[in-house]
């Protein structure tokens, strides 16, 4: 019955309730959405690793990721890799990061050089045209091509050389960087025909444990770092996390502050304006604990509804955004949801402190005094 009262009190003042729940929703949405953006970027950054088909990545010793990294390996290393027990295939990959310019904007790209007979590391989904570029051709991310106003057959200048657009790939774009593929021989030429590659993508024989094969490779190849696909991807994600940590922390703090301020204020007002009724309840024999539960349930309902709305909003946005923006992907992770739930509970707890204190001090004798409450 007291909960019923709390509920009614909450919904009787619709504007205040909407402000309260809406404020929380806004604040939590801020957190959820930014987290989803970063989660989306992480997904984009590891898309190549996840879809390359490789079980293991061999890079120059000490190079653990792709983004903002350069790796040089002798091209001849491939034969050595293939001899190691448990390896079924090794594909050399040439890679660098550069920028492409349209009229008014520049785009960061990952440039990959792949051989025509490459078993791994090719674009995994193509919307139009070829999958593997021949000499003088390029296959690039479809959205990037759109941004650069390029159609099939148009020319694209990469590292000073013209390439004809021969294919448009899907799922290869990103907020930070998009992928461009050219033929391995063209890439080598751009590097003055040096007999070097960036990475080797390695596939293990069916049934072999990638971890075991990785250890075996690491032991037999000097000057390299061998990682499983998951390790390699984790390194990439860590990079994003480290880069984004400050921004995320600031936004989380702002969200927390807004949410707390809104809920604390509206709850305080809600309780304060009804203090006569709470004083009456006390006089009639309600205990302080009864009244505290009133406050807590009001705060929790506001926060829970705010959280629900923010989650719904973020999910909705994660569907809408890809339709509107080409490179932005929102990915909602469990960790973020749980974090925001915890933040909500902390907000509720702190917001309840002042009203609880206020009700605890309320003198029930004031109900009998005119204008006393």
């Amino acid at each position, binding site marked *: 019955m007291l909960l019923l009262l709390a509920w009614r009190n909450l919904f009787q003042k619709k504007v205040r309730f909407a402000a309260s729940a809406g404020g929380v929703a806004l604040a939590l949405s801020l957190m959820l959405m930014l987290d989803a953006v970063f989660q989306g970027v992480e997904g984009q950054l590891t898309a190549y690793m996840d879809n390359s088909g490789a079980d293991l990545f061999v890079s120059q010793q000490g190079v653990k990721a792709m983004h903002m990294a350069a790796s040089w390996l002798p091209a001849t290393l491939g034969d050595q890799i293939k001899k190691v027990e448990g390896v079924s295939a090794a594909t050399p990959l040439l890679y660098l990061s550069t920028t492409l310019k349209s009229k008014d904007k520049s785009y960061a790209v990952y440039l990959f050089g792949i051989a025509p007979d490459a078993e791994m590391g090719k674009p995994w989904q193509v919307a139009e045209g070829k999958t593997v570029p021949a000499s003088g051709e390029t296959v690039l991310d479809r959205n990037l091509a759109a941004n650069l106003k390029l159609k099939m057959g148009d020319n694209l200048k990469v590292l000073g050389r013209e390439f004809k657009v021969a294919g448009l790939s899907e799922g290869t774009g990103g907020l930070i960087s998009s992928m461009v593929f050219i033929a391995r021989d063209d890439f080598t030429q751009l590097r003055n025909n040096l007999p070097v590659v960036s990475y080797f993508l390695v596939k293990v024989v069916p049934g072999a444990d990638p971890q075991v094969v990785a250890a075996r490779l690491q032991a037999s190849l000097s000057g390299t770092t061998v990682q499983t696909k998951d390790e390699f991807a984790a390194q990439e994600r860590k990079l994003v996390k480290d880069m984004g940590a400050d921004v995320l922390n600031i936004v989380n703090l702002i969200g927390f502050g807004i949410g707390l301020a809104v809920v604390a204020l509206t709850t305080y007002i809600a309780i304060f304006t009804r203090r006569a009724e709470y004083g009456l309840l006390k*006089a009639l*024999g309600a205990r302080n604990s009864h009244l505290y539960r009133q406050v807590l349930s009001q705060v929790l309902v506001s926060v829970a509804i705010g959280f629900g709305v923010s989650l719904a909003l973020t999910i909705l946005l994660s569907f809408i955004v890809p339709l509107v923006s080409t490179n932005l992907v929102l990915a909602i992770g469990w960790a973020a949801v749980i974090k925001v739930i915890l933040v909500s509970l902390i907000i509720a707890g702190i917001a309840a402190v002042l009203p609880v204190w206020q009700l605890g001090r309320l003198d029930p004798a004031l109900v009998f005094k005119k204008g006393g409450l």
Partner: protein
Amino acid sequence: MKSPVLEIIKVSKSYGTGPTSVAAVKEVSLEIDAGQIILVMGPSGSGKTTLLLLLGALLRPTEGSIRLNGVEVGELSERRLPAIRLQQIGFIFQDFNLLSALNVLENVALVARLAGLKKEAARTKAQAILGELGLASRLYFLPEKLSGGEKQRVAIARALVNEPALVLADEPTANLDSKIGHEVMHLLKRIAKEQGRSVVIVSHDQRIKDVADRVLWLEDGEFKEIAHMATDPVCQMAVERNKAITGEWEGQTYYFCSKGCRNEFMETPGEFGNLAEVLHHH
């Protein structure tokens, strides 16, 4: 002799300490029996509200003893007072003090719930009491939709739902027009006489004298004069016992406002019966 429901002995209450302290109630003593209606009157600032707060266990006396059904209320710990208020005392206020967000039934059932009744039992009990007070058709109305008299009856139902021994009312008729105020007065009288509850009313309303068994005059925190009241069985007027015209019938003393009433009574005393019955028919 039964022991009194409420017994207050030399109770004083001062607000504040030192030179600025105000003695609101001074060495007041009073006994109230079951079924008795006491009216406390007095000028503004005389300590009426303070007295009511003391009786309602909302304020501790500075000195003296307050016993409710033999329990020394003033000495109970703060934690035990809410239970005493819930179970032993019913409160009725000048401005009704209903919870605006709850309907009539919920307002009454809430107090029964607080006293530990299960949800259904609380509703059933609240419904029964509201029915007795003629509010059966108003159960699901919000307080704002009720007339003043209906609101006060809901408040009375709320005060009674936990079957308290003592009902305390602060100016219960002040916000009601005279006809409705009259009804409420007689409702309080019925509650006292039929249900055996003790009722203490603080009021300026002279008409409440009609239903009171005793009228106390509080001035400067002290009872100045205690008039023992009785009701004329013929015309229902309140009369002070020591000034009234008396008549004996079947070993009982009756009090009358005038010779006329006494003569009428004495012609056919059986028709008026005893006092309680007269009131019942009224």
